[in-house]
């Protein structure tokens, strides 16, 4: 579910941060830039794991910024294809179920990936698994186990500098996961844990 990614970057420490110890200023700058952000084809950055190397600080001309070259390892959320994880149902449509992990929202399980004999209840707006006449609901906020089958990356670079294009680009989710529940043991946790 989590990996470490080795990254090199330039950190710029502003004069207002000069009262902080260098390693704290560097860590804060790295986390401010990366934490909770997606790097394409890498994953969702969580926070700096450790600082591997830092250069001497060089003061920039005319800006007063201290430039430091750094190498560090980042904790990254990147479940692999085939990985099973916990999630919570955040909503249901005729297309399938939306799942979140509290810190990551863009997970979707298509209706095609729900077990056989699962139907959509239009009144309750929920998917229902019918087993021997018993109707088991995929209710909102239920904890589930799901398996990752695919991932989609979308660059948020706008088509132009116009506001409309900027808004459109912002709405794209940079990293989304599709999952399945079509295997014994997957789906609502309570179904399998009560024994």
């Amino acid at each position, binding site marked *: *579910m*989590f*990996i*470490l*990614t*080795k*990254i*090199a*970057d330039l950190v710029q420490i502003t004069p207002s941060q000069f009262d902080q110890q260098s390693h*704290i200023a560097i860590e*804060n700058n790295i*986390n*401010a830039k990366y*934490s*909770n*952000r997606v*790097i394409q*084809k*890498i994953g969702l950055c*969580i*926070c700096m*794991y450790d600082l591997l190397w830092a250069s001497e600080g060089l003061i920039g001309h005319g800006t007063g910024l201290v430039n430091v070259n750094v*190498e560090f*390892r980042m*904790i990254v959320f*990147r479940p*692999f294809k*085939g*990985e*099973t*994880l*916990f999630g*919570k149902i955040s909503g249901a449509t005729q297309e399938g179920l939306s799942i979140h*992990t*509290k*810190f990551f929202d863009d997970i979707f399980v298509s209706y095609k990936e729900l077990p056989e004999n699962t139907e959509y209840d239009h009144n309750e707006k929920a998917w229902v698994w019918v087993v021997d006449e018993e109707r088991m609901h995929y209710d909102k906020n239920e*904890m589930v*186990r799901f*398996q990752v089958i695919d991932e989609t990356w979308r660059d948020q670079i706008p088509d132009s500098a116009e506001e409309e294009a900027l808004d459109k680009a912002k709405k794209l989710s940079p990293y989304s996961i599709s999952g399945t529940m079509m*295997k*014994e*043991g*997957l789906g609502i*946790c309570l179904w*399998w*844990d009560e*024994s």
Partner: protein
Amino acid sequence: MKILEAQSAVLTNIEVYKFLNDQAKQYHDQKRRGPANLETLRKEMLQYFESHPNPLSQKPLPYDTSAIPKLIQRLRPYEISKGELAMIINMRPTSVANLNAVLEDMEERFGEDQQQEIVDIVIEVLGQFPPPAEEEDQGDAMQTTEE
């Protein structure tokens, strides 16, 4: 920014959970706060890890990072892949149905006896939730750990 190595290691949930908890404690002791984006994310992640039935929601914690090499050693005879081992540590399957959710083609690879043996090893090394009668106490214990 330059990516030097896309994936230099895999971390299990218990390792990330411990790292974030230690960080929160360290920041608190040093009377400093991280950037707002990190503070929010850390809080959400700790909440995720502490949601039932995630094994890390059990208090006191049922296992720590020292359980990882122990589990790997005990499961060696079963030829379980590295990815599957990571899932076993994260999901802690304590029944055959839950084991099926983390092993590929379980029924073809393992006989029924072996499936139960693996589950028994998981319970022995990583623990399991106490029976439902004691659940309320566990619920209270969980509350107090949140800030």
